[in-house]
């Protein structure tokens, strides 16, 4: 297989990771919203942890994007 074609196919496969990151981030915010509706008084105090969880989930998804970018432009 042509090297250029293989790289682009690899980059496309790496983008699947971005979809999984979407599920992860949605999970974090979804759990927060669900429990905030049950206990609204405690919601504001946990806002910091919400963003820490979001940052962790998003970072791993961005790593998948990074792999795709490396395949297209660097390797």
């Amino acid at each position, binding site marked *: 297989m042509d090297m250029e074609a293989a790289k682009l196919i690899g980059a496309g496969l790496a983008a699947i990771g971005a979809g999984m990151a979407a599920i992860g981030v949605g999970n974090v915010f979804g759990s927060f919203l669900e429990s905030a509706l049950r206990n609204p008084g405690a919601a504001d105090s946990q806002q*910091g942890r919400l*963003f*820490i969880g*979001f*940052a962790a989930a*998003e*970072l791993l998804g*961005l*790593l998948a*994007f*990074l792999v795709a*970018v490396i395949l297209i*432009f660097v390797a």
Partner: protein
Amino acid sequence: MATEAKVDPMDQFTIEPLAGTANWEIAGYNIAFTNSALWMLITTVVLTLFVAGGLKRQLVPGRWQMTVESFTGFIDDMLAANIGKAGRKYVPYVFSLFMFILFANLLGLLPLGLVGVHPFTFTSHFTVTGVLAIMSFAIVLVVGFWRHGLHFFSLFVPHGTPLPMIPLIAFIEFFSFMIRPFSLGLRLFVAMMAGHVLLEILSSFVIDSGNAGLGWGLVIGLPSLLLMIAIGALELLVAGIQAYVFALLTSLYINDAENLH
């Protein structure tokens, strides 16, 4: 079709020396004034003007003073919540870090293309965000070793770990500690780069479909334009969130150094 120029979404990130690279050498290093340095200068000036405008001492604050005080109060509360009383001495650093990254991200999104200026988001380069992350990590290391000496290494062995597991756990904890500056810089860099690449690709859809005729323009160009507006709003939110996450994680890492767990 073969003669159409392909839009390269990475072109917007090229660093351009604004006055050439010819006479800008010090001790063998090239220090040409680039577009990245120009926008860092612009960010600093705008930030200084913003904070200076709010430095009034009215007991009942006007709007500008209120805005500046809400930013400083926000960082103050965040450091107090994450570090405790010892957090007060980090407010200048974390506030500067947060506001610098926030203004950098936001200034890069300004629609100045309407008047022919190309805004440049200098936080979309790993060199810049990596240095900011290294600064935070260096503060963590200096504070940790200054306050605790070699006892700082107890950070890698959590309380109550059974003895046989200590080597494995310490190794994993050490690795996840050392990866912190890399992940800190990478997160901000990729978020900014991905946002701008997406906006450029959508704009290329609008322009190419518009050039291809009215039918294509309405079917592809118009939805792409609407999507650009929505993604633009999302990018404003992401600019704020990424700045906040950078400052929040910095304060958490400093907490690890100050109060070992």
